[in-house]
């Protein structure tokens, strides 16, 4: 019996989250609107509890569990901790926004936690089956979250698009997985890597499968040319949902890609590297160029996400531990910046008024110098200008790319980031150089303001002292591979 329990021990945080979600579901159904804060508080407690469990059982070496379906290694533990943090911040930022729009309901918290559970499973999966289960749990929760504002035709349309394209991507992914299964005879990533170690006679089907897997992954990441859903979903979804979609799932997607390509198909790096090069260059090009033309901030940030995912792919395509470490650093930094930027849009929004046009940021420095300063830090960080942390993220991935001899790729990347600098600068210009046309005082609840300040300052603090976060990434990767 204890042996049986022992098998489940590494998955304790997941089990805890699942139990708590079920509990919240029941409790929330039984209380009326005035006690909605119960769900909110319980969600935060869930995240804190799961974080406690993860820290308590922090692994120093990879441990396989549940018959090889599940892996508990430093990489998964570190990423999970960042997921708890990210989701918790999302919940805090979203509270006021959701309350004003009548979306402050138990469903939101339940969906968010289910998505969290899906991401945790993705991060800890060591088997195609668990990877896929985690991905679908996340995706289905996200589709529903986007559609939560059911009176809004824009949001419904976005949810529809998201669902249809997401289902297509899942199909491609499954098809690719089945091809790889046919070649290697295994769905477990470890066995797969061993089977492919000495090469295979079935080279063509294998590459065929990899193409489909990479296409499916690119869909989930939102890399060009599989990016079409990103701007529409980011724009159409209520901003709180955009905040969610734009932050935590990127971390999970990183883990997803690294598990499949870096661990399962490690020996085939020569095959998938070229595919990722194309995806990365196109993403950086299309993302940055299209962002210039946007007048809606959410859409602009959507295109900026596409370009950032292109940058992150640079680290992964290096196919080295150094590369994975840099990509991990990049994605964590990206999640931090994305949280701050969308958090700012949420904070400036009021009842019945979305603050998602570029124009709404005009003269923010006059209305609130502090918020303008935080946004300034976030924008320069997105543009990769030191001394903000965004610079080190770019430095890390560029370094990984130059290490494998792809200097031209690094040159292309910096040229596209120059294009990117233009539209980030434009936000700064609107805030600092222009005069406001809206002078309504900005009202915020103190907790949101404090966390947003911490978020913005973290971008600067990590820019001055990036070593701790970088060391965590390097360690997590080297201890898990």
């Amino acid at each position, binding site marked *: 019996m204890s042996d049986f329990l022992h098998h489940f021990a590494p998955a304790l945080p997941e089990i805890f989250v699942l139990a708590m979600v079920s509990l919240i579901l029941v409790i929330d159904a039984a209380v009326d609107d005035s006690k909605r804060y119960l769900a909110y508080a319980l969600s935060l407690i869930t995240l804190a509890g799961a974080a406690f469990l993860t820290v308590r059982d922090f692994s120093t070496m990879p441990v396989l569990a549940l018959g090889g379906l599940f892996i508990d290694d430093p990489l998964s533990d570190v990423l999970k901790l960042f997921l708890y943090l990210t989701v918790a911040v999302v919940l805090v930022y979203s509270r006021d926004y959701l309350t004003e729009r009548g979306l402050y309901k138990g469903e939101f918290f339940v969906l968010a936690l289910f998505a969290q559970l899906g991401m945790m499973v993705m991060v800890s999966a060591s088997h195609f089956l668990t990877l896929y289960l985690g991905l679908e749990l996340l995706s289905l929760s996200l589709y529903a979250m986007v559609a939560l504002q059911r009176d809004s035709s824009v949001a419904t349309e976005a949810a529809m698009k998201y669902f249809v394209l997401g289902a297509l991507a899942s199909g491609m992914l499954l098809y690719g997985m089945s091809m790889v299964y046919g070649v290697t005879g295994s769905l477990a990533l470890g066995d797969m890597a061993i089977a492919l170690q000495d090469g295979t006679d079935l080279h063509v089907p294998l590459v065929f499968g990899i193409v489909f897997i990479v296409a499916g992954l690119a869909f989930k990441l939102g890399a060009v040319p599989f990016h079409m859903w990103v701007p529409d979903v980011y724009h159409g979804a209520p901003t709180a949902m955009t905040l969610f979609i734009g932050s935590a799932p990127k971390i999970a997607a990183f883990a997803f890609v690294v598990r499949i390509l870096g661990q399962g198909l490690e020996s085939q790096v020569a095959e998938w590297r070229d595919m990722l090069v194309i995806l990365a260059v196109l993403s950086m090009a299309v993302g940055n160029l299209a962002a210039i033309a946007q007048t809606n901030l959410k859409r602009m940030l959507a295109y900026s996400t596409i370009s950032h995912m292109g940058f992150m792919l640079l680290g992964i395509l290096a196919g080295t531990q150094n590369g994975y470490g840099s990509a991990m650093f990049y994605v964590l930094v990206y999640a931090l910046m994305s949280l701050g930027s969308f958090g700012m849009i949420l904070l400036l929004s009021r009842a019945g008024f979305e603050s998602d046009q570029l124009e709404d940021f005009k003269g923010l420095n006059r209305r609130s110098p502090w918020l303008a300063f935080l946004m300034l830090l976030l924008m320069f960080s997105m543009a990769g200008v*030191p001394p903000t942390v965004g610079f080190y993220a770019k430095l890390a991935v560029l370094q990984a790319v130059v290490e494998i001899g792809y200097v031209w790729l690094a040159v292309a990347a910096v040229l596209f980031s120059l294009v990117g600098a233009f539209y980030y600068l434009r936000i700064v210009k609107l805030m600092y150089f222009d005069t406001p046309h809206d002078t309504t005082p900005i009202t915020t609840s103190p907790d949101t303001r404090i966390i947003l300040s911490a978020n913005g300052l973290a971008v600067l603090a990590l820019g001055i002292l990036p070593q701790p976060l970088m060391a965590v990434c390097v360690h997590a990767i080297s201890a898990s591979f």
Partner: protein
Amino acid sequence: MFGQSILSLVIWVPILAGVAVLATGSDRNAAIARWVALAGALLGLIVAVPLVTGFDTTTSAMQFVEKAAWIPAFNIHYHLGVDGIAMPLILLNSFVTVLVVIAGWQVIQDKVAQYMAAFLIMSGLINGVFAALDGILFYVFFEGMLIPLYLIVGVWGGPNRVYAAFKFFLYTLLGSLLMLVSMIYLYFQSGGSFDIQTWHATALGMTAQTLMFFAFLLAFGVKVPMWPVHTWLPDAHVEAPTGGSVVLAAITLKVGAYGFLRFILPILPDASHELAWFVITLSLIAVAYIGLVALVQADMKKLIAYSSIAHMGFVTLGFFMFNPLGWEGGLVQMISHGFVSAALFLCIGVMYDRLHSRQIKDYGGLVNKMPVFAAFFMLFAMANAGLPATSGFVGEFMVIMSATQVNFWFAFVAATTLIFGAAYTLWMYKRVVFGNVTNPHVEEMRDVNAREVLLLGVLAVAVLAMGLYPKPFTDVMHVSVVDLLAHVAQSKLP
């Protein structure tokens, strides 16, 4: 107590002072903000004084060195140190910062704290550029200073400020990003080090050197600025507030020229020799052609901006003569131009504050109303034209001499500046200061006040001192220059 960390103080005192100024908040506390800023700038200058008094002029080794691990994951260090080339520039920067704070005392009435803080923070970052001995640390300071400058031009600038701010930022970013890729490449070539002095000793093939030469040339050439990537400078100057123009001309241009001595020449000596003709050509075009362009300007700030480009052409010309005279001449020219251009922009600021015009045609007969000012302006105009006994003469003369040693025609083209420089500066001076008062508003102009006399007086002393007795300046840099030249003369081809 702080003996071991003078350079850190030089960098961080202005930055922290800037943060303190920001903390004074809104314009209700503008007076406090001004005084805190002045105190910070003065303190920044005071902590830089030990750099002079404790400087050993007999060695070319780095002095006041500080080294600590910063980002061990990439072997990046917080590594500071100065030699005879960097030290005078730090001093110049700390000195100009004080002037800038005083210059903005009354003129800036809007968002005073942010204005002062931007300058102080930028001053600290620029000191960091000159003191950094680690490539990435250098890059962080080099790029970081763009942020305050972007805000200074964009927030307090003239009517076309947004265009100018964007142009300035994106131009300089383009160059720096390619430099970043080169730095990462050097990191791997040198066996995993971002240390600039290690790079100096790293063997590099000719192709790699040539490619990196152009990457670095773009980064620093844009900052200098060299023809044909100079077009951002006149725009930025015209739109920037007086203080912004002063810092741009006196300091940021020097960052570009400094990069030649710290990166391009010692790290890529073979490519530098091979492609010297290219840089010399660009420099001579800057000297001669931009001199002519300056002649036809109707806007005084634009005229001085073009004159800056021509003068910086001298600096790069001197560097690529590969002899001590050329290098020292270039360095003296950098310092001298820092004083003279700062003074000229302050003069234009003085006039602009009274008449709100920078057009030459709006003035005339100023000497009748502002005799003291006209005298100062005269001195600086002469220095800009390269009159002997002013600092402007020393550098130009040394560079022309060194060019003569290499090729007579280089010297011949370079010497045209003595004609063009005199022509555009003195012609402008004549139209602005002499003649009859035609514009009724000039009638109402008052002469310089005590604050302005202080500013211009200090600079006048500096210009004359350097012109009459440049030896202390050249002594400081001589050993460093000679040793660096010896290093550059050695091939690094594997």
